[in-house]
């Protein structure tokens, strides 16, 4: 293309057939088409194309020697690329738009809002004030004279009941007469406002209501009712307040009124009184209820068996250390029932407290029992006071024969059942502690024929109470544990008789097979501590050994079900035997087979080899020792008894742990000592040979069975790998690989929000900057204008002055020349 821009433009327009003469061919082609919407669009596009051709810089890539990257529209853009150019163009477009917007707003500035004067002719500048007034007056008159419209649907007769009712439109009455005026008015007023709803409403009142209307109505109604309710409420509130204020006065009034005097003594006769009491009592009488069917013996049996099974299962669970769900309350209730039933039985033994001080003559026997059971409230008299401490208890027991102590205790428990009166529970809590203390106290007293049975009976009672008063009992026992530990540490390791009984009672009361038990575990530690102090005591006495055999036996008792292994017992039994047997030095040669020591020494406790014990009759269950005996005996004969007991314990322990794999070594060591004993007392200890064969057999079986351990039978542990994680559908544009769709969405939304916010802020800034620039520009222009104007004025003045001056000069010359 050649020529100037203008020529080129003309050429281009012509070639497209947009302007001037077009060549024939093309004309024929175009003329075939009728002008249409599409064609017009075509035209616009064509013009745009031509415009584009002439603005080459918008499209051209500005190649540079090196690539320069700029940030444009939040993206890295290569300078001079298509993108860059586009972005630049859009930017200029934006600028243009902003300019337009700004101009528009500037134009509007100070021209919107304000009050509109709707009065007739106010805005019309062509009317004079008089004309306006005149026009207004005529209108007023017209509206007053024509009361009824032409299209009024009212009857023709003159009764004017619809006074003031007119159809309106736009707040103005509708009538033919004023139609012209309305039109004129419309042309005059710049804005008009018509309430469509109102208009329609008025137009056609019968019309079916729209939803909006219905809703409006409902809202209005509800508002109305609400207000009504509020008013009512306010009213009642006020009333109440008034009443409250006056209450004091009323009370005062009432106090002043005198009451009619009542007779001081009941006028009722004895008969009436008796009748009243009978009636009252009747209310407490048990109503007849259909009794539960008596269960058959079999049913009772199966029930019992099931209960036992459940208890057994619980015990096994506890043994393996699993926590069982706490459904023991039911069990507790069961026990409770049994307990009370049991106590009734005891009552029938015919025990009654001497109540000779009381007014009533109390007869022994069933009659009284029934009375107690039937109406316990009446019999709770202070004859039996629940003891608050052990001293009190002892005092109250002092007057009672020792055979009747258990019954007395039962009586107390019966009377102070926690469901009979408030506070009984606390009293009983104290009493359980007292009772426990009392048993131990009894054990510590000198031996008496009846003590043993008494302790037994009281222990049975404690056992029954143990479920209900569990926590108190546990607290008491824990205190006792502390006491015993003090004794072990400070009393040369020697315990008292009460501690022995304590150990028995613990085993009797609590489930000693548990993996962990709040009471049994510490007691076990205590007992093993006690034997351990004996084992390696330098100056152990026979007393120590005696204590040890008892505790060792009890420890085995504790483990009779769970069969846990107690190393200290094994050690103790052997060590104690070594301390007692004659000539232990002879065992030194094979001492490495012993479990307790490699270094056998003889002490003065050892029996002499010349001592010949007299043989005692030993029952099938073995020798029976009494706890009392353990404390005072020290002779050789007694030592021999202890040896027999030790062998018995040894036997017991081996049978208990017969499936432990380390038993081979223990039996080996035990056999060694037994054989040594056999040398001296083959005639006195007949059970030894059978024991030896038993142990040897056991050991042989175990030796055959024992195989090397294979404890590590778990799945192979994989080696931890730390290989990098591979993303299969990796995409650099992808922002997140989160599999959770919801979270992904949230993330997306968040980032979008952030982006939008940034963009908005940016826009606002850009706009305000633009506005500021524009304002500065405007001000500059204004100042320029002013200066120019001023300069112009000065100039004109100067020129006129100059002209005048010239005129003057000329005039002067003229005059001169005239002269």
């Amino acid at each position, binding site marked *: 293309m050649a020529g100037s821009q203008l020529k080129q433009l003309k050429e281009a327009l012509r070639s497209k057939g947009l302007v001037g003469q077009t060549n024939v061919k093309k004309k024929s082609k175009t003329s075939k088409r009728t002008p249409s919407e599409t064609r017009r669009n075509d035209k616009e596009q064509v013009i745009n194309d031509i415009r584009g051709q002439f603005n080459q810089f918008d499209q051209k890539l500005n190649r540079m020697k090196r690539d320069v990257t700029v940030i444009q529209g939040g993206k890295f853009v290569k300078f001079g690329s298509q993108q860059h150019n586009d972005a630049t163009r859009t930017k200029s477009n934006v600028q243009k738009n902003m300019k337009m917007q700004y101009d528009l707003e500037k134009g509007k500035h100070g021209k919107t809002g304000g009050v509109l004067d709707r009065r007739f002719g106010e805005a019309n500048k062509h009317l004079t004030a008089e004309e306006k007034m005149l026009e207004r007056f005529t209108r007023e008159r017209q509206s007053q004279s024509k009361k009824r419209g032409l299209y009024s649907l009212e009857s023709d007769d003159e009764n004017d009941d619809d006074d003031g009712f007119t159809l309106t439109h736009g707040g103005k009455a509708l009538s033919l007469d004023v139609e012209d005026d309305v039109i004129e008015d419309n042309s005059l007023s710049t804005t008009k406002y018509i309430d469509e709803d109102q208009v329609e409403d008025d137009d056609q009142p019968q019309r079916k209501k729209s939803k909006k209307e219905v809703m409006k109505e409902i809202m209005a109604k509800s508002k109305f009712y609400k207000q009504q309710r509020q008013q009512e409420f306010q009213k009642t509130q006020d009333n109440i307040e008034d009443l409250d204020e006056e209450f004091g006065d009323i009370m005062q009034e009432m106090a002043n009124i005198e009451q009619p005097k009542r007779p001081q003594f009941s006028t009722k006769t004895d008969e009436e009184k008796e009748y009243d009491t009978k009636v009252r009592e009747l209310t407490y009488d048990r109503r007849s209820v259909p009794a539960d069917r008596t269960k058959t013996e079999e049913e009772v049996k199966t029930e019992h068996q099931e209960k036992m099974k459940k208890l057994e299962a619980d015990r096994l669970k506890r043994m393996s250390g699993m926590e069982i769900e706490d459904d023991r309350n039911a069990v507790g209730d069961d026990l409770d029932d049994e307990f009370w039933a049991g106590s009734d039985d005891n009552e029938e033994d015919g025990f009654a407290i001497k109540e000779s001080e009381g007014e009533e003559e109390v007869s022994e026997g069933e009659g009284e029992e029934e009375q107690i059971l039937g109406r316990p409230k009446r019999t709770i008299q202070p004859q039996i006071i629940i003891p608050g401490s052990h001293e009190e208890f002892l005092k109250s027991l002092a007057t009672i024969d020792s055979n009747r102590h258990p019954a007395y205790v039962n009586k107390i428990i019966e009377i102070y059942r926690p469901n009979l009166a408030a506070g009984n529970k606390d009293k009983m809590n104290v009493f359980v502690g007292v009772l426990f203390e009392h048993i131990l106290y009894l054990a510590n007293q000198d031996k008496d024929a009846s003590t043993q049975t008494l302790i037994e009976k009281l222990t049975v009672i404690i056992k029954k109470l143990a479920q209900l008063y569990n926590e108190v009992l546990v607290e008491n026992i824990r205190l006792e544990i502390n006491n015993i530990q003090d004794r072990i540490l400070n009393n040369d390791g020697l315990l008292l008789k009460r501690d022995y009984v304590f150990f028995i009672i613990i085993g009797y009361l609590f489930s000693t097979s548990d993996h962990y038990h709040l009471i049994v575990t*510490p007691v076990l530690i205590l007992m093993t501590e006690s034997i351990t102090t004996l084992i390696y005591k330098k100056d152990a006495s026979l007393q120590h050994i005696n204590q040890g055999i008892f505790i060792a036996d009890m420890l085995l008792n504790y483990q009779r079900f769970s069969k*846990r292994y107690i190393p200290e017992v094994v050690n103790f039994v052997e060590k104690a035997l070594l301390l007692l047997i004659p000539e232990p030095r002879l065992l030194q040669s094979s001492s490495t087979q012993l479990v307790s020591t490699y270094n056998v020494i003889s002490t003065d406790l050892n029996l002499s080899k010349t001592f010949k014990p007299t043989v005692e009759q030993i029952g099938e269950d073995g020798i029976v020792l009494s*706890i009392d005996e353990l404390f005072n005996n020290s002779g050789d004969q007694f030592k021999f008894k202890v040896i027999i007991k030790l062998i018995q314990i040894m036997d017991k322990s081996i049978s208990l742990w017969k499936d432990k794999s380390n038993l081979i070594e223990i039996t080996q060591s035990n056999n060694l000592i037994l054989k040594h004993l056999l040398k001296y007392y083959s005639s006195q200890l007949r059970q030894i040979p059978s024991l030896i064969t038993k142990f040897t057999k056991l050991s042989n079986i175990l030796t055959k069975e024992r195989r090397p351990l294979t404890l590590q039978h778990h799945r192979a542990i994989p080696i931890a790998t730390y290989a990098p994680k591979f993303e299969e559908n990796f995409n650099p544009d992808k922002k997140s690989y989160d599999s959770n769709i919801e979270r992904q969405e949230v993330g997306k939304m968040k980032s979008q929000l952030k982006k939008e916010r940034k963009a908005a802020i940016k826009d606002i800034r850009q706009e305000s900057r633009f506005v500021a620039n524009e304002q500065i520009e405007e001000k500059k222009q204004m100042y320029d204008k002013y200066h120019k104007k001023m300069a112009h004025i000065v100039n004109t003045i100067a020129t006129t002055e100059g002209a005048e001056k010239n005129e003057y000069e000329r005039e002067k010359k003229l005059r001169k020349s005239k002269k």
Partner: protein
Amino acid sequence: MAVVKRKADSKSPKGKKVTKRQDTSKESNDKLLTIDSIQKYGNEVIDSSKYNNLVILLEQYQFLNDKLVNSKDVEIEKLGRQLSLTLFKSFQHLLKNDKLILKKHFEDNSKLIIKWLLNKYDSFKDIIFNLIEIKLSSHFQSIQLDLLEISLNLIKLESKYLKSSSNDLYFPITTYSKLINSLLLTQSGEILTDGSNNSFIVLEFLKFFTTNWDLQFYFFNNLSETLQEWKSSKDTNELRLVFSNFFTIIRNPLLYTNDFTPEDLSTWIESKLPSIAYKPSTFKSQYQKSILLILSYPLLTSQYKSILLILHKRIIPNMAQPQNIMDFLTDCYNINDDLIIPILTLNSLYELIKKYNLEYPEFYTKLYSLLTPELLYTHYRSRFFRLCDLFLSSTHLSANLVASFIKKLARLSMASTASGNVIVIPFTYNLLKRHPTCMIMLHNTEVANSDKEYKDPFNNNEKDPLKTNAIESSLWELEVLMSHYHPNIATLAKIFGEPFRKHSYNLEDFLDWSYISLLDNEKTRRYKTTVALEFEEFSNLFEIGKQDDSSNDEITNVYAKGWTL
């Protein structure tokens, strides 16, 4: 007396008076002087140089001696204290006035007097030391304490006034070593259970001893010779007493450390010490000599224990050649009838091995022999296991050896205390972790799956840990511990049946348990739910006596079988 007379002649003006006094003193030979008269005599010595009064005063001690041992009279105590004080003041006066030092330029006469005075001074000191040495009745301990202080003050004075020239550095070695001898021989205290002595004099002396370098340095000076002499002349009990006193004095840390500057240390005497006292090498060799000698004494077991307890920390660093103590340690280590002594020896042995490159033949065999049933019951088990862990920490030890230790410990755990078991389990775990070859003792599928006859090949009698065949055995004993009566130990033992994921157990957490701490642990537990009760019913708590037995045959269920009240 001859000297006295001559002196009396030479000093005629005062001589008469002196003789007079002598007469009076002869009269009062039988009875003791009063406090006032003692004071008077003392004042006369100081004010008017009546030196013969010293003789009278010194004689008093002879009368006092018997009474001091037996009587309880308060007067005698006062008297004794006054007497000592007066004499001290007199001699202090003499010392300050240079009356007790011989110099060449003195005249013969004055030399004679000085010699005489010196003689008296020496006898005074001898009396003091004698009194310190013997056991007085408990009421006169104050006198002994006074005497100790006097003798220490005399040392101070001597160092100041008895030196040959003013520039000399002098420490009265003979006086001090005499004092030390009497302190070591003192019978005022008794040997305590920990092998030390409760003598109040020794304890009082300690107050001065611990803070003053000169007292410490000269304590060991020439002590070895005396100790040697005593060793041959005295009997066992006396030697033990000497040791107990010695031990009481030296058991506290000395002022000597490896990087000390003796010049900065405080001293008892006021002037500087002779340069020899500042040579660490001299001190070390002196120290070593006396220590070695005293350790060769026949000691009590408790004394062995207590000296071994401090040996590696307090004593070995102070010795010139610690290797020389090796013989003593070996002897201790080989004591068989008490397990604790060898255990305590281990610490010092380790110190020697580590720092002084000592070679101990068959160390592990000896260590292995310490594993006896008593070990887990001793108080010192934590000390042993701490060291044993150290000795077995090398991964280059033979698996046989480690296996023997593991197996033996397992054996011991079969009859050990709960606290012993608490140590054995993690200890074994750590060993197994360190020596995975020994895992075969826990997991041996080869033999277990074969039908062959299997007999435990472990030889418990074998002394050499390399030859016990423990590696072919298995740890059944530890398996049994899984059913230990203490729930925590049972749970702990179960780690052997689980994968060995834990890197190692921190042994310190397990070493110091005792029954008391185990029980304390239980006491803090709170009551939560109903404590489980025994549901089994027993007809009786105790065995019923025989008379009942005959009438009623069906005693079925007795809780405490074989026991009656």
